[in-house]
């Protein structure tokens, strides 16, 4: 381990090796917590929560739709901030986090749109409408895919990082539009179910499992981000001595297992 004497906490935070080793210790806990919360939340929401007076059972999709959409948006902030830190302080790890956030965000945004569509059919009578909320979410999906694509568009990793970070930052204007779209325009999409500033507009028996699913999705997001970032660290730091050592060790273990 590197000694602390000439490292500030900030630079240590930016060290891929430190990140890799620390998250390695967290992973077993995070896996357990995530799977536990997801299972409990889903069973609770799908089986035990009372059905909605107006929408019947179709409202149960909320237990996936809302948490997944939350994280699709929060993940964009995280990606843009990671990009900004990379641009300002030239931190390698920060760019790796930015790149890792892109596929996760894209997948979650897709899920937000998909679960919204299958919820829309029984509720609004249509899978898709070009209204403000849904269209701005579609733009979010393209922003995520754009950030990811720019990573592979340049010969030098450096240029790809900068281009991705700039697109991510420019794209943040879309986020408040998504949040506010249900208030600014007349849309089919219902207003926010949960606001920080007021009591939830739903019954407590429906709200508790939703809260659990939101926490579960935060854990899931952290887990996925850490896993993607660790893989990316190995990829980009393959010349580093500690990575070589790790690879040789894994190779030896694989050889032993093959012999047995």
């Amino acid at each position: 381990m590197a000694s602390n004497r000439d490292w500030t906490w900030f630079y240590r935070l930016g060290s891929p090796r430190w990140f890799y080793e620390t998250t390695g210790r967290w992973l077993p806990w995070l896996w357990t917590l995530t799977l536990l919360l997801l299972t409990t939340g889903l069973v609770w929401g799908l089986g035990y929560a009372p059905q909605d007076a107006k929408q019947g059972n179709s409202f149960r999709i909320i237990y996936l739709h809302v948490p997944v959409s939350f994280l699709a948006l929060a993940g964009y902030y995280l990606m843009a901030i990671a990009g900004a830190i990379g641009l300002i302080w030239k931190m390698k790890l920060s760019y790796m986090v930015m790149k890792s956030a892109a596929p996760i965000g894209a997948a979650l945004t897709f899920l937000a749109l998909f679960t919204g569509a299958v919820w829309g059919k029984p509720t609004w009578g249509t899978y898709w409408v070009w209204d403000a909320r849904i269209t701005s979410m579609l733009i979010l999906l393209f922003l995520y895919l754009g950030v990811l694509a720019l990573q592979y568009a340049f010969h030098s990793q450096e240029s790809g990082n900068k281009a991705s970070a700039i697109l991510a930052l420019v794209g943040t204007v879309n986020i408040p539009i998504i949040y506010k779209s249900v208030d600014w325009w007349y849309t089919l999409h219902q207003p926010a179910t949960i606001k920080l500033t007021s009591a939830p507009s739903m019954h407590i028996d429906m709200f508790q499992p939703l809260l659990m699913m939101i926490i579960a999705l935060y854990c899931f997001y952290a887990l996925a981000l850490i896993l993607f970032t660790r893989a990316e660290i190995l990829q980009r730091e393959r010349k580093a001595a500690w990575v070589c050592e790790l690879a040789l060790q894994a190779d030896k273990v694989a050889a032993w297992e093959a012999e047995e």
Partner: protein
Amino acid sequence: MKFQFDSFQQMMEMAGHGPYVWTAVLVSLLVMGWLLVRPLQLHRANLKSIARQLRREQRRRGAGEEKQ
């Protein structure tokens, strides 16, 4: 708190909404599962390719020494 459905079949049907709800659940679990499995695959593949490259370099170095 009580379980809302009397039978497995009733839970699948959800009074007509079953296909929508279960499609949403199934697709979500598949996509989320991919988000956890994919990085693990990448992780292992990266370790393997690094080890392979190191062994190759080692062999090359060994061959070079023999010639001398």
